[in-house]
């Protein structure tokens, strides 16, 4: 065990863990942020995707010891129901999630993609997102939601901050 400082979503946490512990379990079980999911434990499914200094990584296969001072962003740091990120907004408008379990990881990958390529083609999306599995099969909607988010981000006007209307 060793005391380590982790910066998650702008907040510094001191955690006392085995340096080999994958970041995923430190985030979920020690820090208590549950939005990041476990799906395979071997960098195959993308459910555990978080950002290290803005770059997506598979937290199930990233030991706490390699994180050092890098800033960690999880789904909780992307947006909240009252202050949605454009990608989350687009995900709601396209009604992407089914069971929802893979969607934190999908959104983390999509946010990173749009930073790199603000205007991705279908091929760009397919290539970039192929590491994220969705067993509910929401792939087609993920494609269209990414295009929609790209549009929302480029409109430049501030993204709507209210959740999508329900029942209207």
């Amino acid at each position: 065990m060793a005391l380590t400082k982790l910066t998650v979503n702008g907040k510094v946490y001191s955690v006392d863990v085995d340096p080999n512990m994958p970041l995923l379990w430190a985030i979920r079980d020690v820090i208590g942020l549950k939005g990041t999911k476990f799906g395979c434990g071997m960098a195959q499914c993308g459910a555990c995707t978080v950002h290290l200094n803005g770059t997506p990584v598979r937290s199930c296969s990233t030991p706490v010891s390699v994180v050092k001072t890098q800033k960690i962003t999880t789904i909780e740091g992307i947006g909240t129901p009252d202050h949605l990120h454009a990608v989350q907004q687009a995900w709601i408008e396209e009604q992407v999630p089914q069971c929802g379990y893979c969607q934190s990881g999908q959104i983390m990958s999509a946010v990173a993609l749009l930073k790199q390529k603000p205007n991705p083609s279908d091929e760009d999306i397919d290539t970039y997102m192929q590491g994220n599995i969705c067993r509910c099969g929401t792939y087609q909607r993920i494609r269209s939601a990414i295009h929609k988010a790209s549009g929302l981000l480029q409109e430049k006007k501030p993204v709507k901050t209210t959740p999508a209307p329900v029942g209207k």
Partner: protein
Amino acid sequence: MKPQHTSRRGFLKAGGSAGALLALGFSLPAQAGDVVLHKIEKTALGLELSPYILIDDTGKITLLNPRPDMGQGTYQSMPALIAEELEVSFDQIHIIQTNGQGKYGAQLSGGSSSVRTRWIPMRKAGAAVREMLIQAAANKWKVPVAECFAENAKVIHRPSGKSFPYAELVEEASRLEIPKEPKLKDPKDFKLLGKNIPKPDVPLKVTGRAQFGIDVEVPGMLYASIERSPSIHGKVISFDDAAALKVPGVKKVLKAERAMPHLTVETVAVVATNYWAAMEGRRKLKVQWEKKDPTYLATDTYSARLKELAGKESSDFAGNKGDFAAAYAGAARKIQASYETPFAAHAAMEPVNATAWFKGDSLEIWAPTQGPDGTISELARYLNLKPEQVKVNVTFLGGAFGRKAYLDFVKEAAFLSKAVGAPVKLLWTREDDMTQGPYRPAMLSVLEGGIDAQGKITAFHHKIITESIQEQVFKADLKGKADGWTEEGIGEKDSPIEVPNIRRSYLKARTDLPIVWWRSVYASTNVFGHESFIDELAHAAGRDPLDLRLELFKDSPRFVKVLETLAEKSGYRQKRPAGKAMGIAIARSFSTICAHAFTVAKTKDGVKIEKVVSVIDCGMVVNPDNVRAQTESNVVYGLTAALKGPITYADGAIQQSNFHNYPVLRLPEMPKVEVHIIDNQEAPGGVGEPGLPPIAPALANALFNLTGKRVRKLPMELNG
């Protein structure tokens, strides 16, 4: 509308104003489809009765949702049925997930049954409350009931324009009799049903806030990971836990058990203060397992056995017609083919898990279970408790597809909590999930068809050879007869093809590999053989496959409509350029008809699936967007099973362990999918599963048209 999960106590609080309330429950007596409504006195709330609708004098409307949500949209479809009749808008309802106590009626999410069985009862319950509120308003105003109507959570007096919000009518209404036959709304007046309404759980699921089983935390809980015999049917001879116990955080290593319906096997569990430590400890365990005959569960051996059985006498399904044997013997042309489907894993994204807290004389459990009531009864039996001593909290399910109706995992968690005397969260790894089952059973379909000189199909026999889920999982003794589920997709009702001599039959092929329902159950395997063979018959008879189906279904107008719509929307009758081909398949399952047209093309990188056009007739639609989403979902799940896998058992173990050697469909392989919904007023059918069965045969039929090669075994190779 705010989805929330809560306990019974929470429920009381949710409905807990100090004043009057109107609570109406209903139960489904022996026969599903009808409903008995009953009023619930405030003092009885939370004690024994189980209301589905509750309105208090602050106007708060609470609904107990009796169906777990695993992605199929229950969260929305159930409340929509009530809200429509109750004349309230969607966001005025609070939903509470029920916790599995007996009075709620059957709660399993499975068999695409949620909307099908609740359609009328849920609406009747809503309509009864509406009529009571209208009557209450009429009484207060002393005007005829006919002058009043309900709208947007108010009762309005038409002539004067006066209105009462529901909140002010609750007290008066609670004194009224429940109407015996509440009048349901005319579908043309629906405001919610049939409309695209955003699902209320989506904002939670895009912000990481939905609570799945894996996210549950109970104060003082420990974490467990379980080492299992590679052979599945394991007995522990000995284990060495010295290294495991040295891992910081590991508290205890113990022999444990996995109680499956057909047998209980031994395991070794590591319990620790965090999950990572439990897994580390598990990796350091040395367990000596009893050796098993490696051929015992081998899938090769099983597949050979299926073929051996192909020539044996089988037992008939109900509804056979004419004399197949005689007609086949006398047919001008005889066609025979066999189709094989493998064992398949569910591989839901959330591995199974459960958090259990055994408190001596009671058990509380938090789990992503498909059946809260089954969870209670099985746990009660397992631990020798009364059902009232078991409390289940259902979380969101991160996918299930049948797996989370198999309740071995909740028993494992309960066993461990009892053994260590603390709350325990058990989480399976992906490897546990893939190597231990349960799986979809493998099947061999043997088909025979006779064609007369005019190209008419005169004889047809579909024999399926597989294991019975009802026997292995539900301990039925059917003496070699087919269980009720085996004919899904191909029985008389699901496949009303007009052939004068038709036979469908079943032959049991026992396996002890654990099996269970898998999305669309037997229809997922039956229909591959059935619909591929219809295509083979069409080609043999020189007929267009879609035209032949139109003829076979000529007395079933809903099938005809689906086929004609498919032809029109997919451009089936147009000429396709060289290097492109289309194939179709149709099936009815879970009371819904679905057909797909696959376009495949030869490209420089090999054969590609370009497009899937789907037509679905699921009767009256609650939420069209959800029907589209579920159909897209079935395309992906069905394509994975058609193209990837299989699950194989050799050398004493399952050979697949994670997504690197059991791949699933990924985004680049996703074809464009276009879904068309038939608009009608028929009773609603399922939507979570019926899109799946015709996937594999439609693709196989398209490949045949492209390459001339017939696929008779899954998974298939696009470039085989």
